[in-house]
């Protein structure tokens, strides 16, 4: 497990990351969301040791992380590229060797991954000759070399077409099944909701929410929607509730005192037909908007 504890980074007077703490559990995909400038990239660079830490620490398996630990991590920086004038195969083998793989093993592994991402016939092309999507695929391959102990990916899905997103997700799932913790940042909330097991929301350098998607949707004040046979205007007079929306026979209420929803339901059945009474869970985008507001 990768643990981020009270991590802090200042640039001059500006505190880019302010005592951020969260965990990236083994075998789970943790989505890292937040507006531009919220501090996601800064946090990830500190986790990877390419940026100094002003306060706090990063723990790997419960002890402070070392350079050798990070060497086994797969990392994909933001706004990335590869050497434009070197063949794809050569530089992926080079990067794998820098991470400590033997040349022959690195070559075999790279060829296997190129095959899988449909780049086998482009192996000898210079990177600059590839389309942006294919360059992105090469980047992904670079990050999973050799077999990563953890994956830290900054915007891994940006610029990928839906098919490539799927094969990327499959690849990541393969690693999480092996117990590898994965942290990735993204702006595509629908994708995050679909793909990730846990979520960390960052706003203005602080961690404002963290948990599984279900947990996050359960937190906050419970809301219920009530649809009755007649006019629902009477709910305004009920105690312990706030009416968020009222439209003829439909009302959206927020529970302020625990148990108040039960009284509303009892009152509604007493007054006549109840067509619908349901807990409303906010969409991820709503949680995100509220958390980062």
């Amino acid at each position, binding site marked *: 497990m990768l643990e981020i504890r009270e991590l802090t980074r200042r640039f001059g007077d500006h505190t880019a990351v302010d005592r951020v703490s969260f965990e990236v559990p083994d075998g789970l995909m943790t989505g890292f969301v937040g507006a531009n400038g919220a501090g996601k990239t800064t946090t990830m*660079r500190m986790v*990877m*040791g*390419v*940026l*100094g830490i*002003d306060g706090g620490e990063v723990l790997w398996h419960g002890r402070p992380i070392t*350079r*050798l630990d*990070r*060497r*086994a*991590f797969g*990392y*994909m*920086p*933001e*706004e*990335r*590229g*590869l*050497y*434009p*004038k*070197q063949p794809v195969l*050569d530089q992926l083998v*080079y*990067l794998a*060797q*820098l*991470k*400590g*793989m*033997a040349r022959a*093993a690195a070559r075999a592994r790279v060829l296997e991954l190129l095959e899988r991402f449909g780049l086998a016939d482009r192996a000898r092309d210079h990177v600059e000759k590839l389309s942006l999507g294919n360059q992105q695929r090469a980047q992904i391959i*670079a*990050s999973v070399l*050799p*077999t990563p*102990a953890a994956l830290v990916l900054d915007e891994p899905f940006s610029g990928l077409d839906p098919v490539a997103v799927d094969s990327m997700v499959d690849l990541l799932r393969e690693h999480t099944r092996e117990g590898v913790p994965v942290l990735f940042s993204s702006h595509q909330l629908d994708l995050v909701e679909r793909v990730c097991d846990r979520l960390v929301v960052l706003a203005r350098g602080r961690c404002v929410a963290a948990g599984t998607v279900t947990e996050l949707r359960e937190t906050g004040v419970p809301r219920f929607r009530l649809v009755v046979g007649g006019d629902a205007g009477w709910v305004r007079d009920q105690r312990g509730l706030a009416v968020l929306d009222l439209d003829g026979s439909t009302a959206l209420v927020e529970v302020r005192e625990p148990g108040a929803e039960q009284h509303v339901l009892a009152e509604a059945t007493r007054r006549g037909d109840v067509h619908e009474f349901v807990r409303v869970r906010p969409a991820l985008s709503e949680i995100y908007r509220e958390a980062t507001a």
Partner: protein
Amino acid sequence: MSTLHNPRRAWLLVTRRELVSRITDRTFLVGTVLMVAMLVGFIGFTAWQDERTDRAVLGATPDAVEMARAITDAAPQVDDKLAVRMVELDDESAARAALEDDEVDAWLHPVDGGWVLTSESSEQDALTAAARVVVRQVVVAGNAASAGTTIETLEAGSAVTTDFLRGDAERAAVAEAVGFVFVFLFYLAALVFGMQLASSVIEEKQSRIVEIIAAAIPLRHLLAGKVLGNTALALLQLLVYLVVGLVGLSFTSYRSYVPELSGPAVWFLAFFLAGFIALACLWAVAGSLASRTEDLQATSTPLTMLMLVMFFGGVSLDGRGQVVASFVPPVSAVVMPKRILAGGVEWWEPLLALGLLAAFALATVWIGERLYRRALLQTGGRVSLRQAWSAAE
């Protein structure tokens, strides 16, 4: 993971990548081949110029045939690169016609109190010089005979031979010329390879591949690999130029200088190695301070100034200034080899200068590594030297 190697060898991987990616680069290959071709061409031209014989056709009217024959016979002894052929002409008008039709290069005829050599323009220097010597010999010998004596008697005791305290002029000229070549080669290599090194640092920084590398290996390995790779390439290229130059020289009339030049050439390589490593580190820093290729112009200005100082210092310094500069790094890298070429250097002087240069190189490596490491991972705009020096990592 047990299959992973120790990162201690990482710099070697970087060095190899630098070497392979440059050697397979067409611009580099074409540049080197072009330079060698130019070198060979220049030396070949010099050799040809050197060896070729002037062929001149001397026209003579009947009254000058005897004298012209004397010139034709004696010309090779006066000038070993001159061959003269004689053509007999009937009279003055025939001679003028032959000159205008370029059938003869010059026309010899006697006048009152001497001889005249008429030609179209003043291009027949070698023929004129030979004619002067021969005519004088023949006439003086005739005069001496009519006075009842001989040339030998008249000329006895009049010979002046030369003796030099400090080498001869040709040797000094060769030393000066080769010294200029040394300075120029150093300047060219340091500038070309330095620029290339700086742009490859920017390329890595701009593409953020440096972040992937930084997460895998210590950045000083990356710096060491890049500096060593480029130094090896520069040295290799220089070696090719020097060998081609020296071998070429042995085909010219300067061949006697080749053994004499080999010693200084080896010293030059040693000074080049130490000087280039120091400058390469500074070039890497210049690259790491920039965020985009466009910034390199600004971040490398102090360095290009330094290179110009080295170039002009190397070319123009002499006397006491040259002696002092030959110990001051990094200028000593070009000035000392020049002094060694000129001769008159004590055995300890090059060693001291090389030691100082090596110490300077170590200092730049140390300072450069710190600046490079700190500036490299800062993104967004140019990084100032002060920022880089004091930045937290």
